[in-house]
């Protein structure tokens, strides 16, 4: 945080009266207050935290999501045009402005619904319980649209958000008390409640169904999952990689949930989280390693094309990276202890790829894996703490 603050302070004279960017002062002012108020910082003593509070943490995470959001909007617009033209070979970078606007037209309502419903419920509960509005929903409200397919009906998003905020969070006592990640609860709810709108090959591009007959808007993961059945979409792995190259998957020029496709955008977000110290490197790194290890294990067994898919592909396709960076690191639902975080992340990645590959009914294993590890996190912490106590007792005895 200190690092960011220094940059902002350096910029301040430019915005002051007579400075080069005087006109922009209100914008600068609103940003700095959003990010740096309250400015109370401990001056001396044994405290090691700076004045970072819930609001600043939340705003930082939202900033980290901006690259994913922008790329997601563009990508959504691109695939909508692909669906309209019925041609997957459309140039990705051509006609950029129109694509961005088309994407915005799809994504913006999702964000509005998610924030509108979520904040209304938070407000009602705040009113009933007599406390002010918590900032906890700021991040969840942005995460929910990012993990939705482009074509999901708005009312479903509203229902899922309400379910996630009430059942996932308020029932346990509100912000900071939830067991499950709120955004993932919303997605899991939709996945089980309205499977036809959350999976299959009709939902990933806005308006697929109505536009061209015989055109499938399937995702990389959806196509891969067909390798587990009798009728795969592609003949072999080579045909698959010709269609979705590793390069495409890393850049994110593939259909998928709005914010999850681009590994590059996600890694930019991860960098922001790590520099500001908001996200946990232990969880992110061990999550990726866990997924990679499971990929290697599956490669070793082999047998069909999905099992043989090179392990590094797994890290770039689907919601794996997005889950690792923005979902698994949720400080409330993740493990709290340092060792616990490594175990939590590693097992999360491991299970995510396991479910993804071996259960073709749930191609998006990341969601289920993280929710499962959310539930397991307290147990992991318990044993880590117990182990620590035992080790220390031993030391006392031998001394």
């Amino acid at each position, binding site marked *: 945080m200190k690092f960011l603050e220094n940059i902002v302070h350096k910029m301040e004279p430019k915005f002051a009266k007579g400075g080069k960017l005087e006109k922009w002062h209100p914008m600068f002012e609103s940003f700095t207050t959003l990010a740096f108020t309250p400015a109370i910082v401990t001056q001396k003593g044994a405290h090691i935290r700076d004045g970072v509070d819930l609001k600043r943490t939340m705003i930082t995470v939202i900033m980290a999501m901006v690259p994913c959001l922008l790329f997601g909007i563009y990508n959504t617009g691109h695939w909508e045009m692909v669906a309209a033209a019925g041609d997957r070979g459309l140039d990705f970078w051509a006609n950029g402005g129109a694509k961005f606007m088309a994407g915005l037209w799809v994504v913006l309502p999702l964000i509005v619904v998610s924030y509108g419903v979520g904040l209304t419920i938070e407000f009602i509960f705040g009113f009933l319980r007599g406390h002010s509005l918590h900032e906890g929903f700021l991040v969840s409200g942005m995460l929910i649209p990012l993990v939705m397919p482009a074509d999901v*009906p708005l009312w479903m998003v509203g229902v899922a958000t309400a379910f996630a905020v009430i059942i996932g969070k308020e029932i346990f006592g509100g912000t900071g008390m939830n067991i499950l990640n709120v955004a993932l609860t919303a997605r899991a709810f939709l996945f*089980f*409640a309205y499977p*036809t709108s959350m999976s299959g090959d009709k939902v990933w591009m806005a308006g697929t169904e109505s536009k061209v007959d015989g055109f499938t808007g399937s995702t990389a993961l959806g196509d891969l999952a067909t390798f587990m059945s009798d009728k795969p979409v592609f003949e072999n792995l080579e045909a698959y990689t010709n269609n979705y190259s590793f390069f495409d998957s890393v850049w994110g020029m593939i259909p998928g949930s709005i914010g999850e496709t681009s590994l590059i955008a996600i890694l930019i977000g991860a960098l922001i989280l790590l520099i500001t110290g908001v996200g946990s490197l232990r969880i992110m790194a061990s999550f990726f390693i866990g997924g990679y290890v499971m990929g290697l294990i599956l490669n070793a067994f082999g047998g069909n094309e999905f099992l043989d898919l090179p392990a590094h592909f797994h890290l770039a396709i689907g919601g794996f990276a997005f889950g690792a960076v923005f979902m698994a690191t949720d400080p409330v639902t993740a493990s709290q202890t340092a060792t616990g975080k490594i175990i939590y992340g590693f097992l999360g990645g491991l299970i995510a790829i396991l479910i993804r590959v071996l259960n073709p009914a749930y191609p998006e294993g990341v969601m289920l894996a993280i929710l499962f590890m959310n539930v397991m996190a307290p147990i992991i912490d318990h044993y880590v703490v117990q182990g620590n106590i035992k080790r220390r007792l031993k030391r006392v005895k031998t001394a």
Partner: protein
Amino acid sequence: MSEVAQDAKAPREPLFSKKNKKLVTDPLTDNNPVTIQVLGICSALAITVQVEQGVVMGGAVLFVLILGNLFISLMRNLIPSRIRIIVQLVVVAALVIIVNEVLKAFLPDVSEKLSVFVGLIITNCIIMGRFEAFAMANKPWPSIMDAVGNGVGYAGLLILVAVFRELFGSGTLYGYPVFGDYIQGNGLYALGYVNNNMMILPPMALIIVGVIIWVQRSRNKSLVESN
């Protein structure tokens, strides 16, 4: 047999005295067998997909509980305490077999849907719990009142859960299409409404029961354990 002596001495109370009424009304609200004692959850989760199943299951349990409580109460002084569980099991098993046969004969469709859960009434904790906790120590009439209270409390909750699950899961209520025809796509479905598949899955029953418990406890703070 000191119990018998006490029974004989006790003054005759009216059939619907305050105490007896309380036996019926308590399990309906603040001592509900499902939401407060958390008994009989298993069947409450399994067979609440449709209201009809809930009604039949609630009726079956009510029937078994009333007659069982009556018989156990009548026999309470004859049952040696060391083998009382076995005697109770024989009574409940006999009653459940009657219920099962009746359902098979007159409501074969529902009987098929309920499948094993009718037989599992034998192991329903509410029934054994009422036998042990009430019928073994009380006279027949209060035992019947207790059975009515608990049976209706159980059935009521089953039906309440089933109403939510059937309405949002299948769009019907007791088989009657409320939101229009799903397959033809008219009514609400024409506007893009879709049935909630999660309502049909057992986890949602657990969540609904949980929400009912939550609402009940926030309305009556004395039910919240202090810890």
